């Protein structure tokens, strides 16, 4: 086993590294935040991030509340043209509204406190539940809050708590286990998706766990019709788990005692924060060991990752395809917006292939190249057009910031702007046309158009 992972030498730290750190550990930053992160240095920035704070963010952020009127004025949700049944349509619409309210609120949190919400997004993808099955905004919100409370904390504790989480109980039918026919589905997910990973357990273990969780019940959970809301109030005096809690806790402990436990989590963290490419197995073993040693503190692993030299390697920087959520929140950050635009959010949730609180299946989103196809790429181009409007309407428009810079020193300002939006090489800069355009930029409006061009480049899809 390797002793450690090489850290990035202090002398090598650049502004580009700072930008990369904020893109991956958060949802990028405004120009000011990136500058601040660079000045703080890697160590201090990572420490802030692991407290869930964005380096350089104003400490007294005015939290923008979502204007309820905006919600009421939302455009008609698509796909309803195919539903002819009026009753279904209303129920569908009602749920769509609830789901979208959840989504919009979370997206706003992401914009407000990136590093914290990034890890919440990680958990949502790993220990996932879906509104489509749970059909309760309250349950989904509660689960989201559980992820937020855990954040960079105790992985084992989170797994224990997620088994008792109402949304998860409904999502994985945990409470539908009958003694005669133990449902092995949940047991399988617990081993495969939450703890050990595929191929690292035997079917006897599945059967054992399935037997253990027989009898788990959400108290007073009523049978429900499709599209019927589960009553959250019925949950509040829920004490139904207590008699089994200890046994369950021991069961989870025994899983975490297995040497392989932790490797799955490290792999997923690596994939989420660093790279989808094959991760070095020695590195996984080392980080999993550190994780176990720390008493399952995620922050320990992430700290090692964020400080490492490999995290800033050219094979990593700018080599991840942005998820739709990353795209949306990052674009807001980059153009200097303070409030998530509802229309941009709705468009993202419905057209780009990642609807928050609604993952396609128990393994979350498959990410990487699956984000991009002809339809979703066109949708991303369309979204950048919406972002143009957002840029005009709120905050300190990036166009203004960069125009000021370019007035002082045209070429330098331009380069900073390119770095701000494009995380990778941009062949277009070599084209004569690009140079000519860049040279003639002489108003804020020109900069704005230029930014929209940049957002429609294939390179803009990378982070």
């Amino acid at each position: 086993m390797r002793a450690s992972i090489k850290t990035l030498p202090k002398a090598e730290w650049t502004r580009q590294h700072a930008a990369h750190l904020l893109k991956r550990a958060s949802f990028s930053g405004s120009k000011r935040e990136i500058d601040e992160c660079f000045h703080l240095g890697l160590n201090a920035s990572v420490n802030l991030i692991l407290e869930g704070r964005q380096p350089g963010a104003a400490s007294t952020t005015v939290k923008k509340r979502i204007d309820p009127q905006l919600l009421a004025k939302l455009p008609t949700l698509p796909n309803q043209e195919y539903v002819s049944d009026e009753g279904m349509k209303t129920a569908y619409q009602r749920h769509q509204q609830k789901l979208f309210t959840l989504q919009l609120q979370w997206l706003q949190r992401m914009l407000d406190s990136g590093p914290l919400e990034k890890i919440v997004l990680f958990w949502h993808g790993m220990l996932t539940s879906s509104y489509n099955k749970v059909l309760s905004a309250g349950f989904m919100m509660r689960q989201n809050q559980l992820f937020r409370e855990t954040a960079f904390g105790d992985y084992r504790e989170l797994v224990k708590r997620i088994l008792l989480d109402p949304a998860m109980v409904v999502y994985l039918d945990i409470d539908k286990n009958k003694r005669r026919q133990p449902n092995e589905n949940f047991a399988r997910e617990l081993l495969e998706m939450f703890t050990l990973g595929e191929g690292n357990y035997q079917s006897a273990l599945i059967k054992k766990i399935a037997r253990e969780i027989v009898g788990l019940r959400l108290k007073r959970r009523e049978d429900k019709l499709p599209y019927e809301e589960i009553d959250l109030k019925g949950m509040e005096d829920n004490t139904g788990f207590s008699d089994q809690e200890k046994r369950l806790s021991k069961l989870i402990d025994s899983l975490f005692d297995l040497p392989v436990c932790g490797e799955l989590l490290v792999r997923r963290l690596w994939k989420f924060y660093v790279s989808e490419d094959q991760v070095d197995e020695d590195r996984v073993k080392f980080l999993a060991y550190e994780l176990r040693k720390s008493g399952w503190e995620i922050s320990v692993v992430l700290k090692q990752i964020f400080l490492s030299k490999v995290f800033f390697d050219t094979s990593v920087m700018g080599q991840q395809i942005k998820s739709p959520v990353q795209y949306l929140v990052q674009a807001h950050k980059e153009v200097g917006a303070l409030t998530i635009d509802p229309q941009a959010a709705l468009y993202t949730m419905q057209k780009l292939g990642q609807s928050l609180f609604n993952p396609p299946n128990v393994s979350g989103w498959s990410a990487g190249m699956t984000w991009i196809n002809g339809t979703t790429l066109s949708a991303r181009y369309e979204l950048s057009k919406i972002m143009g409007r957002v840029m005009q309407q709120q905050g300190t428009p990036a166009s203004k910031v960069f125009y000021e810079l370019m007035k002082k020193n045209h070429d330098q300002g331009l380069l900073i702007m390119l770095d701000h939006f494009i995380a990778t090489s941009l062949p277009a800069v070599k084209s004569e046309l690009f140079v000519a355009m860049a040279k003639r930029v002489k108003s804020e409006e020109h900069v704005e158009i230029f930014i929209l061009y940049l957002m429609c480049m294939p390179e803009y899809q990378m982070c």
Partner: protein
Amino acid sequence: MSRENEIALSLARREFMKTGLLASFSLPTLLNYSALAGPIPKVTAKHKTLVIIQLDGGNDGLNTVVPWGNSRYYRARENIAIKEADVLKFTGVRAAEGLGVHPQMEYFTELFQEGKLAVINNVGYAQPNRSHFKSGAIWESGLDGAVMASEDQIRNSSGWLGRYFDKHCGGESNLVGAYYGDSPLAMRGQAFTGTSISDLQSQPFGFMKLGEDMALHPAFRKMQEAAKNAEESSGEKLSFVRNIAAETQTSTDQMRKFLADVKQRGGDFPRTGLGKQLGMISELIINGGDTRVYQARIGGFDTHSGQAAKHAKLWKEINDALRAFMGRIKSTGLENDVAVMTYSEFGRQLKENGTGGTDHGAAAPMFIIGGGVKGAIYGKPPTLKGDQVNNYGGLAYEIDFRSVYKSILEQYLKVETLGIISDKHPALKLF
């Protein structure tokens, strides 16, 4: 300074936001529909075209093709059975005795009379699944293993049309398949996913106003080209995105070029969801697009309650849209080059439920329509005897849906089906 540079530099935001340099990526909304004047020109087809109408939600087969001659039907459905007097009965063919269609389906009886309607009884598959999503995925996949696989596994595999595109449409653009609604698994292959045509007629978001000029702005094109021709050193994922960007541009260009040639519009299509879809599809077909398979969608078939009114409304919509569509196709001489197939993820149970509806079942009839179709009744009408009704009340299948797919592929699209549909399923003789 080159002309292109000048164009680029004179770009003003107004123009940019309005005509939408970016808008050129979504397909034009409004074809210039001038009322058709003069005789309709005849068109020669480059290839056969299949139009699928997906009946989303699980269509009640027994109230669609009604076994009015079978008393078990009436016993099981005291409230929602179609009265014998209301059934539009098939006549003239022995196999059609005791069968007819829902009173809203007049056009289907006309098609049957003309020998252009194939009614295939009891279509389904072994070990039927009652989940909309899973059963839908099984139908779309067409793979034998699908029934035993998880829904995710099915969704991660390929669809029957996708395999057809891969095998027989290599080198063509993604326009070989075109669909309304969500990207269908059926059209997913290794190299193909199909192209969404939803945006041709409806813009989901009102703020996108598209101008008439759809030409891509030269400046943007140049920049995209630079990206396309970039050296490979930029990493696998970025290269991938660049390729998709280039491909997307190509197929958008093709579609735009093609639509620019669409000059007229005829036929009197009902202003319903399906009417609009079939109207647009007829236009695309008549103008000689490369699309082999279109998929239209109509939803609302999940009639657990108050079925009678809902079901009638749905079939009226289909009946009227189809009449307009086939009329339009026939008027341009393409009748033998277009076939329509209807399918639903499952049928419904024999017995009505307590809320004037029916619950998820299994086998149901399918329709194939077209000038080249051998109009007939395929398979026996449901007996509705105990042995045909499965343990939860759905109907057992007699014809596997893959036998229908195979017939379409082999006899209509004239391709070999090895690797597309398993050889366990003999093709019906529908054409």
